């Protein structure tokens, strides 16, 4: 049974895929084919963050309900690290000084920032005129460029000082809800940013947010989720009102692929050994589906039913 399961966000590290769902954190070690519960977490996680430590280890962060949880043992146990406002977006990366930067975007209090992997926090909302954060992403080259983006209920902001302060970016549509964000894997070179809005379509910048263009063909659409292919730097996927669309030219033009509806989270996982790519989509009350052919066809993942998950979580 997958119908009642809502999937809010994906994250990945070391060939493992994590999903923040309505029944807790799930993980898959087989490119999204099967999913199991990852530890017990007392909040409804809406966002995930991964801070790699070495080659096969990572600090996991889950934001949601009344704050944020962190796990030092890859999800076996979780501890509360931030309480208060609902954490709607989480991002983490080491910086050039070796600090473990974690940022939590909240529903009502802007951005909280930690430099010690989420142990201690300070407010970092300087420059944000809107404290309702909906999406957040950091540059793949964060340690070098200190760049990140935050989508709020009324626009988009950028930091170039590691999240200490934010600057409003002028978009072609004023006061738009920016609910999804994705930076090209080679953002350091191409400076391509995609921003998905609620009802105002998809926006693309080729200069790290300085100027933006609205993508024809997706105007007036809501873009709930965005992700980039891992293997091909110019391929991206977007979840729209009318299903999944795909671009093979770095987000300039898009074509409709298939229509699993109500997709609110997307991720692409590359199997290093088989050199294949799997697109994974999380749906609102519709479970997880996956595609091995570039989003043309989709099959449901084998997910333990919420009831089973709940039973299992009791025993962990």
């Amino acid at each position, binding site marked *: 049974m997958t119908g009642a399961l809502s999937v809010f966000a994906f994250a990945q590290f070391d060939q493992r895929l994590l999903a923040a769902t309505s029944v807790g954190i799930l993980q898959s070690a087989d490119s999204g084919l099967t999913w199991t519960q990852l530890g017990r977490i007392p909040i409804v996680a809406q966002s995930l963050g991964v801070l790699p430590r070495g080659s096969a280890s990572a600090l996991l962060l889950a934001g949601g309900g009344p704050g944020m949880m962190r796990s030092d043992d890859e999800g076996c146990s979780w501890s509360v690290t931030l309480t208060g406002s609902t954490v709607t977006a989480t991002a983490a990366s080491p910086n050039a000084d070796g600090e473990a930067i974690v940022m939590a975007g909240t529903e*009502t*209090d*802007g951005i909280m920032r930690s430099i010690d992997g989420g142990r201690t926090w300070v*407010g*970092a*909302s*300087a*420059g*944000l*005129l*809107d*404290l309702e954060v909906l999406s957040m992403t950091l540059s793949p080259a964060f340690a070098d*460029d*200190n760049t990140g983006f935050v989508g709020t209920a*009324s*626009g988009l902001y950028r*930091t*170039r*000082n590691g999240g*200490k*302060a*934010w*600057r*409003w970016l002028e978009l072609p549509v*004023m*006061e738009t809800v920016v609910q999804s964000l994705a930076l090209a894997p080679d953002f350091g070179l191409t400076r391509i940013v995609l921003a998905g809005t609620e009802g105002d379509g998809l926006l693309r910048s080729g200069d790290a947010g*300085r100027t933006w263009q609205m993508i024809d063909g997706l105007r007036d659409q809501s873009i709930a989720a965005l992700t980039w292919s891992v293997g091909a730097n110019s391929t991206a996927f977007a979840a729209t009102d009318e299903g999944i669309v795909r671009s093979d030219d770095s987000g300039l033009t898009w074509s409709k692929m298939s229509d699993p509806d109500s997709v609110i989270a997307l991720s692409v996982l590359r199997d290093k050994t088989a050199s294949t790519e799997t697109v994974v989509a999380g749906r609102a009350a519709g479970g997880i589906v996956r595609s091995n052919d570039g989003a043309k066809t989709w099959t449901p993942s084998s997910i333990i039913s919420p009831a089973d998950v709940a039973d299992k979580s009791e025993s962990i």
Partner: protein
Amino acid sequence: MRGQAVLSGDDARAALLRGIAVMTAAVAPTLGPTARTVAIAPATFGTPPEVLDRAATITRRTIAIQGPFENMGAMLLRHLVWRVHEAVGDGGATAAVIAHRLIDGAIRYVGAGGDALALQHGIQHAADVVRAELCAQSRPIELPREIAAMIAGSIRDNRTALLIGEALDAVGADGVIQVRDSPSTRTECEYIPGVRWDVGAASPYLFDEQRDRVTLDHPLVLVSDSAINKPDELVPAIDIAIGAHRPLLIIAPDFNESALALLVSNKERGLLAVKAPTPVGQREQAIEEIALICGARLFCQARGDRLRDIKPNDMGEARQAWATRGMTGLLGANGNRAAIRCRVAEVRSELARAIDEDARGKIRDRLARLSGIAAIVRVGGTTKQSREEIEQRVEAAIATGRAALQGGAIPGGGCGLIATASAVKCLRLDGDEAIGAKLLSRALEEPLRVIARNSGREEAPVVNDAHDLAAKRVFDARTATWVDPWQAGILDARLVLDRIIEVVVSSAVTTLRTDTLVRGPAPPVTWTP
């Protein structure tokens, strides 16, 4: 005319030139990355000399030189350096050496029978070409590390340069960056979120006992542009807030005692009264903008608005409001963001038009409130003197960074100026006008000559190479090598050089026109040891 003396013609101009030379010699050692310092004798006995490395401060401290007519020349240069410093915060030594060379050449030529007016025309034509050429050479500067690379040489600390680069990027070229002392030895940058102004709660009795801060969560906000003198005027607003189960923040220029008494006696219901920011000359705009930021209707006495007619949707909102005795802040104010953006654009053009530095500071404060961000660079140092020295460098670096963000950068170290020579050569001028253009072109070589001299190199070969390389590579005086300016970060802010040329040319023209110097009687000297 008792006690007065007059000097005319070539003698007068020669005296001016001697004074200019003395003052230039005092600041020239401070130019470039291998600059040296200048020690200035104190005004009182028993204190050590002041060791300085900034042209603006050196000229400021040099109150007079020997010789009354020479002193006039020195003061002319002092004024020139200060004008450049006030306009762009940096570039004083560059301006001084260019001005000296230009005035020297022009005075000598006029002394040999040249036409001062034609010379002046030639210099002005050439200046226009040079400024256009600098525009053509310039590239935009955007990233924090680009700003940092550009100012690192003058600030002499890469970490502080990056802090300033990041701060300028965050607040923008027009934003507020305050420079303050830090109790520690380390320089840090702090970002101020939301809206903040340095006037606090209207009464100390609004604080709870033993607390000096009031915080309201999700308050309604009432903004009035006139003092609140009648307590009954506030009752409808208080009723609305109580009905909505929300605290109420009241912002007004002042409150009389009876109004405050009502608020203090009801403070348990979440009432807070704070005074609005009232910058002299911009009071109305500042209050209007606070209302805009909060999404509140401004109750305007001049329009005949009455607080007793207030409706719930006349109130603004914020996520949080706080006040101390001397400060008020708002976080997550709920104004119409599109309207705020329009206002930001209006205030920016107001800033561009403002000439007075005091007015510019107040406009920047308003911009900071509208943009929801300001930065404070807290300068650390081991001694008060070292802290003050770093503070001056930080302020100059901020000014240079602002100029670079606004007008881009050009190859630095004097090489960008030299690269304008070919464009000046193309000017079709005859006779003494052509000489004037040539004199300016030669004068623009002077910064590189001085930089080379200060680094212990022979000047002529360096300048010749600079002409050949046409700013594709620039002279790095630290290593005596030619490097790519954009890679090495050896850059100058175009607007700084533009302003230097404008000021230098206007001073040169003034000096060229001067024919007679009149010295007044010396003032009586008093001295209290």
